[in-house]
Each structure stands twice: as structure tokens, then as C-alpha cells.
């Protein structure tokens, strides 16, 4: 067998084993995605209920809570980026990071300073490569996040938000995550966690009858207790959404990788066949010309 042929055969073999790996990863992602979506669906009512309750308090009471009003003593803004721990998910992490960078530009144009919080190893390496300072990072289990991680992140962000300006307090908390719209569409989104934005689900109080909400023990205390939990629930749902998006992206990316591998295999098989055929042709012509030379002599 000629050298050319051996090179092609080798390439085909290595691509074949790569293809098996891609296929396996695609199947793994596909089998996990159902569970991830179920977790998103299961956690949504909780976060919705808590969001609705928070908006009810901020709309129906005239509490001037520090957590719902804008802080003016600091220009720092906490930004949390949620990305993947591993690659091989197409542009999933890159898209989230790009959205975060855009947000950063916008914020800096407004004269604000970004305090970066990061979840997922891909984003951590992105920022550490660029020597950006990270205020907090969480890695591990980006495709099946646990409540504990969400609680940790929420605690850190909540502390930053309640801290005094000289201790590194921030005036806003923004989250960049990837929203799972469907199996084929996932888009990076930016949400502002605090100060509260007016949230859907609660009707604006009409002018005629002001629905009188009664708060037990008091509106302030209700807000005090609910806000940390609200942050935790929102972060947890962002993590879950991102996990589902990551798996969907990975499945799609691996699917593409498998068909690319098939293309390459087909291409190299053709080349190997051509090489083999031309070798045979050459051998025949050598033999024929050799025999001719012998007969002529």
C-alpha cells in the first residue's frame, strides 16, 4: 500500500472515532435535555409566585425600601454572566459573553463601573485571559445546577447590593443568561434583578379602587424577607434556563459535528479510492512497459 493511501486511511479512522464521540455526546445531551426542561418547568411557578408577590408589595404599598429604590451613592453595577463549564456547545457561551460585553460597554458609556460575577468555566477563562477582575466565580455543574449554587450566588449579590458604597456596594444587579425559548431557539438575555423592574403578572392599581393589601407583619418586613428569596429564585431559574439552553446548543452542535465528520469520511474515502486506483494503474503500466521492453530486446 502506498504512502498516500495510508495517510487517507488513517484520517478516515481517526474521523470515524471522533464521529463516535460526537454521536455519544449528542445522545447524552439529548437524554439530559428532557430533565433540564422539566426542572425549568417545575421551578417556574415558584419564581413566578415570588415575583408576583414582590411586585404586589412594591405596587400596593408606599414603602420606600432601600432595595426597591435607586441607589445614587455608587456607580458600580454587578453583572452576572451565566455560561457553560465545557465547550462543544456551539456558540452558546460565546453568545452569552458577547451579550455581557455589550452590556458592559453600554454601562460604561453611562459612566458606570462594572463588577463582574461569573458562573461557568468558559466565561471564567474568558475574563481571566483578559486579566479582568472577577468579584465572584462559580464553576461546576453548569448543565445541572443545584439550589445551593443559586443560594451562594444570591448571597454574594445580595451582600454586594446591601453593602455600603465604600465597601464595594453596587447600585444595580444585572444578569446575563440564555433564555430557553425552544429546542432550536435560545437567546442571550439581560435582566435587571435589582432595583426592581415593574414585573408582569400584577395589574396596575386602578384609580377607582385601590386594592388594600394587608401585610403581615408589615410591608417592610415582608419585603425584607422576600427579597433575598426573590433573588435566589430568579438566579436559580436563570441557571436552569441556561442549563437547558446549554444542552440544546450542545446537542445541535454535536449533531452538526457528526454530519461534518460524515462529510470528511466520505471525502477521504473518495481520495483513498482514487489513490488506490492510480497506484494500480501505475503498476499495470509499469508491468506492461517492462514486458514490452523484455519482448523488444
Amino acid at each position, binding site marked *: 500500500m502506498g504512502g498516500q493511501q495510508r495517510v487517507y486511511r488513517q484520517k478516515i479512522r481517526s474521523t470515524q472515532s471522533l464521529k463516535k464521540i460526537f454521536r455519544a455526546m449528542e445522545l447524552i445531551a439529548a437524554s439530559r435535555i428532557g430533565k433540564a426542561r422539566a*426542572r425549568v418547568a*417545575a*421551578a417556574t*411557578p*415558584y419564581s413566578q*409566585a*415570588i415575583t*408576583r*408577590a414582590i411586585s*404586589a*408589595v412594591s405596587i*400596593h404599598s408606599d414603602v420606600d425600601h432601600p432595595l426597591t429604590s435607586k441607589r445614587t451613592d455608587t456607580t458600580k453595577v454587578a453583572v452576572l454572566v451565566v455560561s457553560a463549564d465545557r465547550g462543544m456547545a456551539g456558540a452558546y457561551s460565546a453568545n452569552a459573553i458577547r451579550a455581557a460585553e455589550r452590556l458592559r460597554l453600554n454601562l460604561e458609556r453611562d459612566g458606570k463601573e462594572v463588577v463582574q460575577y461569573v458562573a461557568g468555566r468558559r466565561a471564567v477563562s474568558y475574563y481571566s485571559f483578559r486579566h479582568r477582575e472577577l468579584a465572584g466565580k462559580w464553576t461546576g455543574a453548569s448543565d445541572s445546577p443545584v*439550589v445551593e449554587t443559586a443560594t451562594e450566588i444570591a448571597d454574594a449579590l445580595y451582600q454586594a447590593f446591601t453593602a455600603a458604597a465604600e465597601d464595594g456596594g453596587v447600585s444595580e444587579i444585572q444578569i446575563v443568561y440564555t433564555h430557553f425559548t425552544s429546542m432550536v431557539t435560545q437567546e442571550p438575555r439581560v435582566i435587571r434583578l435589582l432595583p426592581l423592574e415593574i414585573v408582569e403578572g400584577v395589574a396596575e392599581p386602578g384609580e377607582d379602587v385601590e*386594592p*388594600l*393589601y*394587608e*401585610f*403581615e*407583619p408589615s410591608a417592610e*418586613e*415582608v419585603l425584607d*424577607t*422576600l427579597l433575598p428569596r426573590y433573588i435566589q*429564585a430568579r438566579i*436559580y431559574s436563570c441557571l436552569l434556563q441556561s442549563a437547558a439552553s446549554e444542552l440544546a446548543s450542545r446537542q445541535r452542535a454535536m449533531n452538526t459535528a457528526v454530519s461534518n465528520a460524515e462529510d470528511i469520511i466520505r471525502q477521504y474515502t473518495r481520495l483513498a479510492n482514487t489513490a488506490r486506483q492510480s497506484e494500480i494503474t501505475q503498476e499495470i503500466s509499469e508491468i506492461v512497459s517492462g514486458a514490452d521492453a523484455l519482448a523488444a530486446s
Partner: protein
Amino acid sequence: MAGALTVDIVGPDRILWSGTAERVIAPSVEGEIGLLANHEPILSLLRSGTVRVRGESGDWSEFPIKSGFVSFDHNIVNIVAEPADTHED
């Protein structure tokens, strides 16, 4: 008899109970609170205890909780609860 309540009891990772009920009793921080239809809108924090729901058929369901809150508005009850660990001995 007053109308029924639409009740949703949700935990952090799942819905614990959902349906229509005749009354709900929850352990608020200021004492037990009983909710019937047409109660005034309220938002109350809960302490650890048991949330009890009386379904329309008259049977009680009980949920031990660690903490949470209940909101009531237009006969819609939302209870958000951190369930107590029932399997812990």
C-alpha cells in the same frame, strides 16, 4: 356559601398542590390565619408549621413547611413554601 378559592402551593422546585379549595389555614407569623373566599387581599409571611387545605370535597390536605409566605387576592391563594423535610428522622 361563598365561592371557591383557587389555590396553588408551590415549593422551590415543584408544585406541591394545586386546585380549588373551600378554605386554607396557614401558620402566619402572627398566628394561624384562616382564608375563606372574599377575604381581603393579604400578603403574610409564614413560620414553620402546617398548611392545611380543605378541598371542595371536604377532605383536608396537610403540608408541613419550614417557612414561606401566603398571598391572597381576588380569591386566588398563592402559598410559596419551603417544605419541611418530612423524611428526616
